[in-house]
């Protein structure tokens, strides 16, 4: 029912169009900058919206949301890391890099969830918007700590290989932490949020046609391109192996369930807000975390984390995950 109606949201349909275009080997492609332009637009728009809400927010509730965002960002990568090591299909450095993605968030999935709620007329709290902006950085930091710990372990087992890596790890740690907090998309999102919060409200209204009216169309184009990318990456799933693909399907369910529990029990959100916290838990970053991992954990294979995040977890969440987290939220929060 609700899963089916999700499929009739234009944003999801455009995602499917991109995906199918790649499967039928169409030569449809976007100019290389269009995805980046759309992503800047989306981050600025949701930042401004979040900021306007932030300005009206209850301080206590906002602080609770931020704290739980940090905790999710710290907890989920550790769970992911454990599960990945348990598969015995990847080494600890690959596991650290992949796990970091799941502590962070996919803005595209989050926005699709908002479109899903909107299409069903379901209200939601605005705090998840703030949580979205918070969750990139802690996941990066945990990923780096896990990688550092793994390097230490590898160095013990094979000391002759480990030495230069451990050295390197320490050498740039400061840089990398700075990177986690000055990452372009984090700055864009938090900066726009601050602007939304402090700017002259009348002037903010003049931005409404740009940030709100044309938003859905921009999101559709973005998801079309993400569908193309997901389709491209999906083809690699054989290479990453079934164990990892299973992780890419199970981890969002685990993260989504934890998110829904946090949203309902800890933050006391409505069904809509709880669904969104579920989506924050379930989704995996494809903007801020991948470059951070490439820079800080060069030993990890990007094919693994890009295929899982873009080719497996993203389509799963967009198509079936969101209705599931909504269902979960309804069972929990709907009963209250």
């Amino acid at each position, binding site marked *: 029912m609700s899963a089916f109606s999700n499929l009739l949201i234009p944003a999801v349909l455009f995602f499917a169009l991109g995906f199918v275009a790649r499967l039928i080997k169409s030569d449809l*492609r*976007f100019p*290389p900058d269009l*995805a*980046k332009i759309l*992503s800047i637009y989306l981050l600025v728009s949701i930042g401004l919206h979040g900021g306007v809400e932030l300005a009206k927010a209850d301080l206590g509730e906002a602080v609770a949301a931020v704290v739980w965002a940090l905790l999710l960002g710290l907890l989920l990568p550790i769970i992911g890391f454990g599960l990945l090591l348990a598969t015995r299909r990847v080494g600890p450095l690959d596991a650290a890099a992949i796990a970091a993605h799941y502590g962070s968030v996919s803005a595209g999935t989050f926005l699709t969830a908002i479109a899903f709620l909107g299409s069903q007329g379901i209200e939601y709290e605005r705090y998840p918007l703030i949580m979205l902006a918070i969750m990139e950085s802690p996941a990066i930091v945990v990923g780096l700590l896990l990688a550092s710990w793994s390097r230490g372990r590898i160095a013990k087992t094979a000391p002759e290989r480990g030495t*230069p*890596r451990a050295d*390197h790890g320490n050498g740039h740690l400061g840089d990398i932490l700075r990177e986690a907090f000055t990452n*372009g998309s984090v700055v864009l999102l938090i900066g726009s949020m601050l602007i939304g919060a402090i700017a002259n409200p009348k002037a903010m209204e003049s931005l409404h046609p740009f940030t709100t009216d044309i938003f859905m169309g921009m999101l559709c184009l973005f998801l079309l*391109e993400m569908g*193309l*990318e997901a389709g*491209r990456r999906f083809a*690699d799933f054989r290479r990453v192996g079934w164990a990892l693909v299973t992780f890419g399907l199970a981890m969002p369910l685990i993260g989504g369930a934890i998110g829904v529990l946090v949203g309902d029990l800890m933050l006391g959100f409505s069904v809509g807000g709880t669904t969104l916290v579920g989506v924050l838990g379930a989704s995996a970053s*494809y*903007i801020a975390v*991948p*470059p951070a991992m*490439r*820079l800080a954990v*060069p*030993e990890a*294979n*990007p*094919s693994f984390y*890009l295929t899982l995040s873009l080719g497996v977890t993203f389509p799963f969440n967009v198509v079936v995950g969101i209705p599931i987290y909504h269902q979960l939220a309804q069972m929990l929060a709907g009963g209250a």
Partner: protein
Amino acid sequence: MHRLVPEKLVTVITTDVLEQRLVALVRRRGASGYTLLRARGAGSDGLQSGNLEIDTNLLLKVILPPDRMSGLLDDLNALIGQGYHLTVFVSDVAVLNHEKFERPMTT
């Protein structure tokens, strides 16, 4: 007649995430300049489709006097040793305005 003077051209192809780090190396090694091109491709690191912020390559070209080249190659080798995926090659070129490649960048 033109005095075409032989120099070395070092080309590096890798993810554009490394841009700042590579440019810093090039400056430190006293190159007179550098050129960056946006690229995509594939290699041991998998596909770099160039469509997303996260899978775009860059191609760096640096002309520099042979004595400075060696240090730069050391730096690049060190990056490869750390696990970064770099395609590095050196070509022989003949430059027209030879003196300019001797003067390190001032900024």
